[in-house]
């Protein structure tokens, strides 16, 4: 079995492992992956997320995450966490319950917020609830 598809939403140490994956491997994951850089510009947007949101990656890549891609996360519950971690230079690995408005339907999800000091790459992972 391909190592990439082994990765689960809840796997420990996920930040480092995601950074190793090719775009094709990211696309095979069963949870949504949005990667963004130190300026919040989206650098990766995998197939799972693209299909759930109804947006192709081309509309999203290169856009600032919290204003142009996922404004629903632009509050103290999500965006603030990343800002705090960045300011304090501390790691962030938290999973919260949230509601996304995918295709304008309220969908309960789990969000995993990942940031590592020393790495510009940060991630929001999205797990649709079963």
């Amino acid at each position, binding site marked *: 079995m391909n190592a990439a598809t082994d990765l689960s939403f809840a796997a420990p140490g996920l930040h480092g492992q995601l950074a190793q994956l090719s775009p094709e491997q990211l696309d095979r994951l069963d949870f949504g992956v949005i990667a963004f850089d130190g300026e919040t510009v989206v650098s990766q947007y995998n197939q799972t997320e693209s299909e759930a*949101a*109804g*947006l*192709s990656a081309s*509309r999203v890549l290169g856009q600032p995450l919290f204003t*142009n*891609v*996922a*404004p*629903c*996360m*632009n*509050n*103290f*519950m999500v*965006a*603030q966490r990343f*800002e705090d971690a960045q300011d304090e230079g501390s790691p962030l690995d938290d999973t919260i*319950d*949230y*509601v*996304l*408005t995918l*295709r*304008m*339907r*309220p969908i*309960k999800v789990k969000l995993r917020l990942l940031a590592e000091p020393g790495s510009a790459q940060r991630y929001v992972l999205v797990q649709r609830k079963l």
Partner: protein
Amino acid sequence: MSLAVGLDAHAQLAAEHEALIQFLYLAPVGLVQTGIDGEIAMINPISAQLLMPLSRDGCLTNLFAALEDVAPELRHLCETFAHPNGMICDGLHIHLNSGVAGKRMRVPQVLSLSLLKLDGARLMAVLSDVSEQVRRERQLRQSDAWLNALLTSISDYALVGLDREGRVSDWNETIARVTGFTAAVVGQPYSVFYPEGATTPDLVGDRLREADANGWSLDEGPRLRFDGSQFFGSSMISPMPDRDLDAVADGEPAYCLVLRDISDKRDAIDKRRRSVFCDHLTGVANRRAFFEAAELELNRNRRTPRPTALILFDADHFKQINDRHGHPAGDRVLRQLGAALSLTFRQVDVVARVGGEEFAVLLPSSTLAGAAAVAERLRQLVEGQPVGFEGASIAYTVSAGIAAIGAGETIDLDTLIKRADRALYAAKAKGRNRVECWNGDLDAA
């Protein structure tokens, strides 16, 4: 039609659909479509951004439920809307809690909500964060009050010199004409012109500090004549031009107080205030007035430390009253509770309805023990005074939770509210109809 053309048309439709979805994702305003009962059918991202921090259960299945804590009247508003369709509310301001402690991110303080009834089954809602607009309006309003004070024709005014500490420094004819005080008033603090309970020694100093900082400080309200009678007046305090506060000797004028009798304007002023700052049902302050007053008081508290207390009252088993006697009876109970609170507390205290059956009282310059004594008086008053409604006598009780800021402590409004809320929770847990004060132990959560 050839297969290629069909595919083309399909691809074009798909692209248009995607563009439309993105258009809705990016709309910088919250849009929600719900059933008539508030059940959410469609919702865009800004709505989630604004509503998620408010939703108690972390769900966005019902709009009314998500806003329950901050706009408890919505369901009722929709139920009682008589027309088959039309605007139920247009730009209704919803005041949120003052912000999240310790967070640097700008947290919305005021949301605007418009609700459109489409038909018997559907509502559309528009939500936006209007905190900044409201802040600007507030500044404008203060300037308006100032201009009003300058420009309106007035029956008379008294010109009073105040020393560094706010004591009357000189006497003149105008003071006698407007207030009836004789020269013996010299040396007394200007609170001598205020009825009991309408100001505190701390507040006397606050207004001087505000005059120092802004160039003027204005307030309108009841004033006291020498003979004990009252009039409705405006007081504007401004620093003497070119004075050097450190160089002004004790007893020398450092401020000018212009005291005007504006009794003839009172109705208009009251009406304007009521429409903006009063709870429509009970007539006490609304959430907006409460948060504005509390922010102001806590700012003053930080500048000049003094104790400040907050009491949260909650009518016990209120739902049962509504269920047993009907909503009009429940409304009557709330009105009576509001009246009892207004009567029991000082004029300088801010009594506000902050939730369905929850009231808050902010007590400037009051200790925890002082607030507890008044809360206990209110509790007894309510217990001994059943509400009459259509022949029935409805007995009810209240629980209270109290927290205070000690002199020199710095606590933000949210923490103060949370502590009072913990104490209220403890009062409920211990059997209701009681007053509990916050102590560190209750802070566990």
